[in-house]
């Protein structure tokens, strides 16, 4: 049913329609609205016999989900940023145990400095955890991906994380066709666990594995991820037939077939990029966009095919691997034929900095003209960085870097330890 609805609420309503049996919640911005709404559904009795557990940490949230999933219950939680890092040991554990937990990740930067706004640092921090990682471009897709995520997780016996941009999607109110209960029931079969804790058939789950078998166990996790590539496409097709709209899949392609410059990105920025592409296309420039919906497993073949005719590939990254640069771009590079393209990494939108159409237009003009460096930082104020570098060279105890920069740009003015008040 079409309605004007907050992204978090649309996801919560969809999760409720998926009939989870155990939901664990620990508050962290910008994910809180989701578990609040699911909690209200449980409290009202609408989702009985679902158990909603307010835990004492994200580590416990994922651990409760592990126990519940291993006991045969459809299990869900949501987190973001520091919360994901606090549960990271259990995140790996859930995947190693092959438990089909679904988790929403409301993407947010990681501190220090503490920052509640959107980027993709959190998702990138768990890219090697063995979870399937899906990225929503819109709130409609965020809602739809959750239905597909439970389906995929339970088919594969592997956990699935649905990323949606914090605030940009979670707190945006827009029109969403929230999947109805009847439609979800018809699409998503009941959870049939592959292995379950049951007194009638005792199993030991989580045994210690030494060098004799560990490599094979990990190899099978890799194969399971590769199998997911196929299943993700099939589930997206089945979803399109059932719901009458396309959501999910491996990648989305927008005007990229004949594009000289192809931009690759994750999440909601793909929508902005489509607008920028339209502007450039009106000017006669052959530019296109590829949105990576499935980040793990990485769709190498789909990326290779989608970039096959491009001269240049620009990867927009809402994350930074310090000392390296891009993260998504290393995957893109590994997917496309060596030496065939020039690939530029553009780090953008860290900690919630707006990525504007205007900046993207300048960027893509530079890309078309071959002026992009291999690693670019969109809208970086180099003057501010240079002032701080000079300060560090001058005074050993020159104060905290974030505060110094805020003072430089006029947000705060007092610096007694430097003997200057402005």
């Amino acid at each position, binding site marked *: 049913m079409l309605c004007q609805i907050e992204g978090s609420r649309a996801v919560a309503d969809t999760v409720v329609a998926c009939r989870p049996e155990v939901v*664990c919640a620990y508050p962290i911005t910008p994910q809180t609205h989701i578990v609040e709404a699911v909690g209200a559904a449980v409290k009202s009795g609408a989702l009985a016999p679902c*158990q909603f557990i307010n835990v*004492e940490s994200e580590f416990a949230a994922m651990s409760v989900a592990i126990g519940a999933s291993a*006991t045969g219950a459809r299990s869900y939680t949501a987190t973001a940023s520091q919360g994901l890092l606090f549960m990271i040991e259990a995140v790996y554990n859930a995947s190693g145990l092959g438990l089909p937990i679904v988790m929403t990740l409301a993407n947010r930067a990681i501190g220090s400095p503490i920052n509640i706004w959107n980027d993709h640092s959190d998702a990138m921090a768990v890219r090697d955890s063995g979870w399937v990682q899906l990225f929503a471009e819109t709130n409609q897709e965020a809602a739809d991906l959750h239905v597909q995520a439970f389906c995929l997780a339970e088919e594969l016996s592997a956990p699935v994380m649905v990323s949606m941009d914090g605030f940009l999607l979670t707190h945006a109110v827009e029109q969403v066709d929230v999947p109805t209960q009847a439609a979800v029931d018809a699409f998503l079969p009941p959870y049939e666990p592959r292995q379950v804790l049951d007194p009638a*058939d*005792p199993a030991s789950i*989580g*045994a210690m594995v030494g060098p004799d078998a560990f490599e094979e166990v990990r190899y099978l996790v890799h194969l399971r991820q590769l199998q997911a590539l196929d299943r993700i496409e099939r589930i997206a097709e089945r979803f399109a037939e059932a719901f009458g709209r396309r959501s999910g899949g491996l990648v989305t392609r927008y005007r990229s077939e004949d594009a000289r410059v192809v931009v690759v990105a994750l999440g909601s920025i793909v929508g902005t990029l489509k607008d920028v592409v339209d502007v450039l296309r009106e000017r006669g420039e052959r530019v296109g966009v590829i949105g990576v919906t499935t980040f793990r497993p990485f769709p190498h073949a789909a990326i290779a095919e989608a970039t096959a005719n491009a001269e240049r590939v620009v990867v927009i990254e809402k994350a930074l691997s310090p000392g390296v640069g891009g993260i998504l771009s290393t995957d893109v590079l590994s997917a496309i034929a060596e030496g065939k393209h020039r690939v530029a990494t553009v780090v953008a939108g860290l900690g919630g900095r707006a990525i504007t159409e205007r900046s993207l237009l300048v960027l893509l003009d530079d890309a078309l003209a071959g002026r992009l460096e291999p690693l670019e930082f969109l809208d970086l104020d180099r003057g501010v960085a240079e002032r701080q570098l000079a300060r560090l060279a001058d005074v050993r105890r020159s104060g905290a870097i974030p505060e110094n920069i805020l003072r430089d740009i006029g947000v705060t003015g007092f610096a007694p330890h430097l003997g200057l008040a402005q």
Partner: protein
Amino acid sequence: MSPAEPVKFYQVGSFAAGNRLVPAELRTVQADAARTNSLTSGHRACQGCGEALGARYVLDAAMRATDGKLIAVNATGCLEVFTTPYPETSWRIPWMHSLFGNAPAVATGVAAALEARGRSEVRVVAQAGDGGTVDIGFGALSGMFERDDDVLFVCYDNQAYMNTGVQRSGATPPAARTATTEALGPEPGNPFGQGKNMPALAMAHGLGYVATATVAELHDLEAKVVRAMELRGARYLHVFVPCPLGWASEPADTIRIARLAKESGLFPVFEAERGEVTRVSPIRHRVPVEDYLGLQGRYRHLFGADGSVARPDIVGRIQALADANIARYGLLEP
């Protein structure tokens, strides 16, 4: 008196006595040929392991109390490692290991799933060593207690991180030598601190049932498991389990050391409900703490070559701890 005599006397006069002296319905679960053997033979625990003994009694008693409807969750540690070297397992009950610090939360998830799936007749026991309980698992345990989740949590306390090679934990007693509190310097071994009294912390959460026990009195241990399984909500059982490897004691002394811990007053054995002590196991034959300490190499630096006390200052401070326990819990009262 030779060291063997008190043990012999005890085996006649205590609950550790042979089952032939008690009515059939009071005999231990272990005396029953049809017991589960939840933790069956062939595992790789050290000779004289108190934890393996304690876990076998606890789980078989819990299995009988729940008519075989039991799921166990295990923290990382000796008990996990020595029972499940892939592809072998010593567990004959549904058993799960996830991580070191999350056993209480995993158990909460198991209980929640059972409730959601209409199978609340199946009960949940979570178990960990002292590290997984008082240190790395403490946050998760406190959360599970506070929510009153339907889990019996059992701590097998051997007072250090034995699985990683005998490092100090928050449950290591003063003056004990560990690999990170060596018997060096003017105050050798673990420093005297405030200690982390886990049973008292469990009581402070207002739990329906908290109990302590040792592997010297296995009838008592079983009875406490049975009592715990009669109740719902969060329950806590703290079992004192000597570790010959970590304590540098003779494997044959495991039971004796456990008994002396109780008889010296260093380890009070009691039950509590809703934050109040309801029953105390009195000291039968009080012994000075050096009787307990002297059997363990981890306290060797307190004794001379002839076995006499070489550090009366430190032994005196340990005796004061035992005396404080005796006064606090009324361990000498009839």
